[in-house]
């Protein structure tokens, strides 16, 4: 008899705790992976796929799950340093397999050769190529991230990557803007 009571008591205690944990797991459910979100914000968002993942978000998720942090070629050493800070690991040099010429480039379509197959349009991750079937395509330079994903699909090899020289028009002023704070005005006798 005592054994039955003992088993019952342990069972009931276990049930109560189990219910409590079940409730807590619903209440404290973590939406997505907050770490992957933070990593994604650090990555350059070129969606170039040079890391071997289909885009920046998948790579961010992979890093959150323990993938090497040094595979982002467009981000370079700066991004690796930031990721290392966030993950609390050592800074590593850029992975040799993913090391590429990092000078800014844009895709250029040699328009005489273009047959209007739209294959490069489908490959472009940032929709920087405009054109229609059997119409000549062209690249919107301001949108192009220089990921060179459109080069491979082109059947007539009419796309080439051209370096862009730095001019006053495309110079990126990477200034950390000083955030403006709206101070509360202490109005004297005047309703705001």
């Amino acid at each position: 008899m005592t054994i039955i009571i003992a088993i019952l008591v342990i069972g009931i205690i276990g049930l109560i705790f189990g219910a409590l944990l079940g409730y807590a797991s619903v209440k404290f459910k973590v939406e997505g992976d907050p770490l992957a979100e933070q990593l994604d914000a650090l990555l350059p968002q070129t969606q170039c796929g040079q890391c071997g993942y289909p885009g920046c978000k998948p790579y961010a998720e992979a890093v959150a799950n323990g993938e090497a942090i040094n595979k982002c070629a467009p981000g370079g050493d700066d991004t690796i340093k930031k990721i290392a800070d966030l993950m609390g690991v050592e800074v590593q040099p850029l992975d040799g397999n993913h090391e590429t010429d990092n000078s800014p480039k844009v895709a250029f379509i040699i328009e005489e050769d273009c047959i209007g197959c739209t294959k490069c349009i489908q490959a472009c991750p940032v929709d920087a190529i405009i054109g229609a079937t059997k119409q000549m395509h062209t690249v919107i330079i301001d949108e192009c991230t220089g990921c060179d994903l459109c080069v491979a699909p082109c059947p007539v090899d009419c796309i080439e990557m051209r370096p862009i020289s730095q001019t006053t028009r495309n110079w990126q002023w990477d200034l950390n803007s000083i955030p403006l704070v709206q101070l509360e005005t202490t109005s004297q006798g005047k309703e705001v």
Partner: protein
Amino acid sequence: MTDYLLLLVGTVLVNNFVLVKFLGLCPFMGVSSKTETAIGMSYATTFVMTLASLLSYLVKTYVLSPLGLDYLTTMTFILVIAVVVQFTEMVVHKTSANLYRSLGIFLPLITTNCAVLGVALLNMYEQHNFLESIIYGFSAALGFSLVLVMFSAMREKLANADVPNPFKGSAIAMITAGLMSLAFMGFTGLVKF
């Protein structure tokens, strides 16, 4: 009031769980290489210890003792601790993803931290009442945190120190822990019970 204060000081300094009773040595050696992680671990352990000693007191007094099931205490306490740790893990995961990652495996391993079960069992053996149990649990965790954070700060300094080759790594950490323990033994007699 004085009794409670004496219990607190006595548990933190004189009968320190780590350095005098030698409980909870695993996280003491394992999570002490970085002060930041050590502080996070301290918060988590403090939360778990206090809540576990409170819950185990309630379960023991209102469920096990009236039914004459005192022989089940150890098992039930482990159940209670496991639940509290799981709960803490969920809360930490929700509130601080960074801390969750840096604590890693040591967070669920609080379950097997013998200091937590030790508090619950010592509460029972020393027949503490409800308030005493909570204070004992809290001050044990406070003592654990104090020693852990102090030790991790020392280890950070040691990382840059010119340690002789044979003592590098864990060896010097063990010696440091021993010397700290020696120092804490000096508190014996601070509080007369």
